[in-house]
């Protein structure tokens, strides 16, 4: 199958990038999108050109490394998957595919389709943890946790930190990411102790890093490869207000 690829090429963080068009006929419907890019890269290398740089590691939808903006969708037109799970069978023979990196001030482009997502780490470092030292934990059964709360916590904690929410949001807001982390801990008794400091610190860091503000459009939820709900954002807001009031 043949595709016309318009891919953002940018040598490094400081250089000015541009779209480069590749007419590529080495695709096939059973390839994944990233395998198609691998194949394109092979042809580029053989011609002595630089291959398209993109992040990917586990290629099974869990590490969160991959992620690119494909034809107006983060991770492509199929809902609830990462880019590595996107199959070429969703594209038509002869189709034009525009591939762009995540666009956000807080996610500067490193090269081609690779962006720097360290901002997420900084938010997590600000308070995304429970302060307990190795060796000081009580028996795992010392604190029972309500099953539905534990299940909710799990649904929040499956975030893979891929940045899709930021990429999808028209405001480049990181609220879904932050709320998933805050929610996970807020739902656990052991996480409640430092809940107030946590939510304040994480929000403050999020703001400082230049993410946009949430306007409840729901684009993040619609595109999240792990289907994380904006109910988490509402919970984050509650947590924040109660932290501010007390």
């Amino acid at each position, binding site marked *: 199958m043949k595709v016309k690829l318009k891919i953002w090429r940018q040598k490094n963080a400081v250089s000015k990038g541009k779209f480069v068009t590749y007419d590529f006929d080495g695709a096939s419907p059973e*390839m994944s999108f990233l395998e198609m890019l691998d194949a394109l890269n092979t042809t580029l290398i053989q011609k002595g050109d630089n*291959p398209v740089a993109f992040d990917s590691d*586990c290629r099974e939808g869990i590490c969160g490394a991959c992620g690119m903006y494909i034809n107006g969708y983060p991770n492509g037109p199929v809902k609830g998957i990462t880019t590595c799970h996107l199959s070429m069978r969703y594209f038509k023979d002869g189709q034009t595919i525009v591939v762009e990196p995540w666009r956000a001030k807080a996610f500067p482009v490193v*090269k081609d389709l690779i962006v720097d997502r360290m901002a997420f780490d900084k938010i997590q470092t600000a308070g995304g943890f429970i302060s307990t030292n190795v060796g000081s934990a*009580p028996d*795992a059964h010392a604190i029972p946790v309500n099953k539905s709360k534990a299940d909710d916590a799990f649904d929040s904690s499956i975030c893979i930190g891929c940045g899709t929410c930021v990429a999808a949001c028209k405001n480049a807001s990181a609220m879904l990411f932050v709320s998933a982390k805050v929610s996970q801990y807020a739902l656990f008794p052991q996480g409640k102790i430092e809940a107030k400091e946590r939510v304040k610190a994480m929000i403050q860091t999020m703001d400082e890093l230049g993410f946009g503000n949430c306007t409840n459009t729901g684009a993040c939820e619609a595109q999240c490869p792990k289907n994380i709900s904006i109910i988490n954002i509402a919970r984050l807001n509650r947590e924040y207000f109660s932290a501010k009031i007390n």
Partner: protein
Amino acid sequence: MTKLNSKIPDGPLAEKWTKFKATTRLVNPANKKKLEIIVVGTGLAGASAASALGELGYNVKNFCYQDTPRRAHSVAAQGGINAAKNYKNDGDSVYRLFYDMVKGGDYRSREANVYRTAEVSNDVIDHYTALGVPFARDYGGNLDNRSFGGVQVSRTFYAKGQTGQQCLLGAYSSLNRQISKGKVTMYSRREMLELVIIDGKARGIITRNLVSGEIERHSAHAVVLATGGYGTIYYLSTLAVNSNPSAAWKAHKKGALFANPSFVQIHPTSIPQLNDYQAKLTLMSESLRNDGRIWVPKTKGDKRHPNEIPEEDRDYYLERRYPAFGNLVPRDVASRAAKERCDAGYGVSETGLAVNLDFRDAINKQGKKAIENKYGNLFEMYETITGTSPYEEPMRIYPAGHYTMGGLWVDYELMTTIPGLYAIGESNFSDHGANRLGASSLMQTSGDGYFILPYTIGNYLADDIRTPIIPTDTKEFDDAEKEVKDRLEKLISIKGKQTVTSFHRRLGKIMWNHAGMSRNEQGLKEALQMVKELKEEFWNDVMIPGELEELNQELEKAGRVADYFDVARLMITDALNRTESCGAHFREESQTEDGEAKRDDANFMYVAAWEYTGENKEYKLHKEALIYENIEVKVRSYK
């Protein structure tokens, strides 16, 4: 033999670790602040070690090649994490867990280490729970357990099919806490390219900044490798595409012995290769074999759609060969049987390298709903990747490289044969023998990082409390850096015609065919020659575009593949040496009349630790005898 002192404390098995902890030397808090430790890798082993060492007060420098520590491949572990909690009251205990691991490892692991891992397994679960890891719970609010990998007790803690991810994020959160306190400095997008040894001790590493291409020097009083295994040697495996053993390999070349490299676990149920550009294979949980029936057509090259092949034309080969266990035979047996059928020409799909895993009968019997409840998310994932629904037609599966039991040789303190260099998690060899049991990887790797290394490293650093910060402007660092730069320079200046990946793919094929699920002398010797030739071809004809001083993914891959040729040679050397079959290592010359693995305890009950003696020089074998005082050595039987 002088090199291999495993330093196992004496005394009864159950008291060894307690005794060690009680008598080991300590570093006082004021002195810990003056000591630096490098930890390479941020998976469960690396992140847990870095955070635990930070909590103790050491200054830790933590490295990973990914953009963030949270992406290390521990994230992909599915099934669960074992612990001897006995919450189910089903008779589990530390001893039983230890027993299962030693037996499962086919009596090729070190008793004392395995027992200790079983011992700290409970602490690991307690700690993860305290960190907010959302393990599955029952309605009473207690943690739930499931049975996994054919053991007789329910000791596996899990978080749906994402236990590895949840544990890793827990470890990542504790790592973040230490970063926020300034006790851990994180260096991401860095690849370790050399180990620096000063006066015989590991004192630093050379890294490449993967964004700028800059070569950097980092020093410390001790170096910890938590860099995982070498399963991507097969190119196609269940591992992350960038997983690699290069860091451990550099240490090996600098003197660290490498143990049991031929012990590689092949997982029987992964989604087969769909096209030539495929970069990895996705695992489908082992649990599918509880209801799915595995078959191939009875006639070679039967191209009919599987649903159109009638019962009498199907060969349910596992049920035929193993009537007692049927589709539930152990991983290694199931893998080898699939390979046998495909090699004989009965495989399905265009490549002929797949077998059917059919749920038709289970759906007819239990109803679609029941099957959906059990495997819904797996079926969905399968459909996402392949485009076909396992409800409608059989899944296609094939074995894939999964986990490497072999690794750097370490003593009881997890120190390699280079003083001050430690190896933890999958990168060492000690706990899984010749075969790893399900859900024991997360347990071992977390135990190493959180509860073992932080004790044992003090015993070494106690001698270093007067050693100031190690300067990096020394001859040793100069030499190491020069070595790294020369090699990169050499790689990029080849400017041949073939891509790095094409070499990796060819190497993978050689290894898969000759040093994969079953091995024989002739095949291994051929492979040795082929790898040698391929290596020469690589160094003459590889094409690496771009420059050294930029983000250059081809260059990164090239360095790893270049090392893989050498890893392959060692793997084959070890497989040739071990003429017995044990665990995942199946030598065709050593099998029973009905084709089962035959162990040779009289001649091979040892750890084969290999010493690197130089490029293309003979490897030197060191043997660590395995002594089982607390467990009766039996034939591993499942009939």
